[in-house]
């Protein structure tokens, strides 16, 4: 079993498209694949595959403080303990909870000397399972409502995905990450065998590719690059960076009107990655 993450600092460069085309390509070669959509704030893989999220297999809950007004002695210890500024104490009154800012860590409850903080447990997200084909399962994590810290949800999703790969004896786990470099992306990348960094041939693409590369270096993950819409910009910008860092290219994907149409109609599965020359 091999785990490959599809990432890249910049949004909209084609991470999800590439993750799906890769998964389809592997199934074509006779492999069994679990595709995991780790962009839990904005998961899109199911839409690009023209399907629904599928069966809800797990509900992820988290702590949210609730102040017991009778037990509270207004000492302010909880406010001091909360490093997310999710507790606010009006003068001489018990603290008020600002749920949008809460990271669900529970430090306030541990700090309270009178046991006045109760657990008003909240659902922060769900994990869904969709069978795309006999040999391809999609697992999606999705936040529910406003969630400040999305890393833990990705962690739970990874556990579910790992279980699924064992159950169906998968050959590959493909992880499609969110944009950026912060917690949900780091959580998705931890422990993978390798990563594909998707970029486009513009100065912005290069800028964010460098950041993404630094992150994978930090996490000691071997990488290859996918250059998307390679003919639209200035590929030489990216190529000189790849040469300097000795990074190999896994795919150079030309702009394709056909692909854009399939994408806009949510029918990537019908595109199947025709004629793409992968070197994984």
């Amino acid at each position, binding site marked *: 079993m091999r785990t490959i993450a599809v990432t890249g600092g910049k949004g909209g460069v084609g991470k999800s498209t590439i993750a799906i085309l890769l998964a389809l390509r592997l199934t074509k070669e006779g492999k069994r694949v679990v595709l995991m959509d780790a962009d839990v704030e904005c998961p899109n893989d199911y839409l690009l595959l*023209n399907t629904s999220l599928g069966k809800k297999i797990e509900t992820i809950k988290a702590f949210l403080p609730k102040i017991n007004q009778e037990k509270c002695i207004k000492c302010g210890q909880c406010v001091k303990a909360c490093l997310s500024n999710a507790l606010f104490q009006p003068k001489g009154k018990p603290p008020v909870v600002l749920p949008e800012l809460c990271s*669900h860590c529970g430090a306030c409850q541990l700090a309270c000397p009178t046991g006045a903080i109760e657990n008003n447990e909240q659902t922060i997200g769900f994990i869904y399972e969709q069978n795309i084909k006999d040999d391809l399962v999609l697992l999606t994590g999705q936040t529910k409502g406003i969630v400040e810290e999305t890393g833990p949800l990705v962690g739970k999703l990874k556990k579910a995905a790992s279980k699924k790969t064992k159950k169906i004896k998968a050959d590959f786990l493909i992880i499609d990450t969110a944009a950026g470099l*912060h917690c*949900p992306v*780091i959580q998705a990348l931890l422990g993978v065998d390798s990563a594909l960094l998707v970029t486009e041939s513009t100065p912005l693409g290069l800028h964010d590719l460098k*950041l993404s590369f630094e992150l994978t270096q930090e996490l000691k993950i071997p990488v290859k690059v996918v250059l998307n819409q390679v003919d639209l910009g200035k590929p030489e910008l990216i190529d000189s960076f790849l040469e300097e860092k000795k990074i190999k290219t896994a795919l150079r994907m030309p702009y394709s009107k056909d692909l854009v149409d399939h994408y806009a109609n949510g029918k990537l599965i019908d595109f199947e990655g025709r004629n793409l020359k992968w070197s994984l």
Partner: protein
Amino acid sequence: MELVILSGKGGVGKTMIASSLALSFQEDNRKVFCLDADVDAPNLHLWLGGATWQSKKELSLTLKAQIDQKKCIHCGKCQGVCFFEAIDEKGNIFKINPFTCEGCGACKFVCPAGAINLKKQKNALFKKGKSKTGLPLFSAQLFPGESGSGKIVDFLKEEACKQSCDVLLIDAPAGTGCPVIAAVKDADFALLVTEPTPSGFADLKQAHELIGAFKIPFGLVINKFDIHEENTEQMIVWAKSHQVKFVSKISYEKKVFQALSNLTPILDTDLKTKVEIEAIYANLKKVCQ
């Protein structure tokens, strides 16, 4: 006025629009201050045609827990309370995983041996600068592997609020997590940017839910509206049923990609997109008055 530009989905044109609007405000002699809240991968300065940085400062806005192995009694209570699952155990030795530790301090409260401390961690580079056309700009770069994007955005906003300006223009990152929440929370108006694809629509609704929680009025920009006119129509219907202040559209032009490759601000081109962005600005001005 605090104006935030967000989208949920990445790569739909937030920064292109944010930079163009900033330049439009400037041309209009409005005092505008730019804040790049995409601290993971900041690009606003590039879209503004480049920037000169007048000062750079390292920030330590996050904490990481540390276990003093000499004091640790191996009880595992810390691991039990860590919501971020950032404490690993191997052969009864407990260690903090620096990549997942959020520095919340819950572990410190339960440790009976006083073996856990929180240590400040350098997590970003704060940059103050001016764009090519003299627009003041605050930006920051999260160090790869570090956490605390939301706190960095909070810091940028606090610094920016000390400046006098007519418009504070905030370019939010993709997603709806902590840095986006920080970017959005005190805004007076939000511009939601999307594209007429199934993913664009789904992510637009996520972004809308976020601004809704903070009761922020909004306008909608549908970028590349002509790649799927039917989806565009559906989005307009949706927006109208959600009290949108205005809807603007931008056509799909391959040449935008070329302008971008050459770092040419859209307002310096003769593209259709330029005219369409000017129309967005006109709409925005009406709302702001």
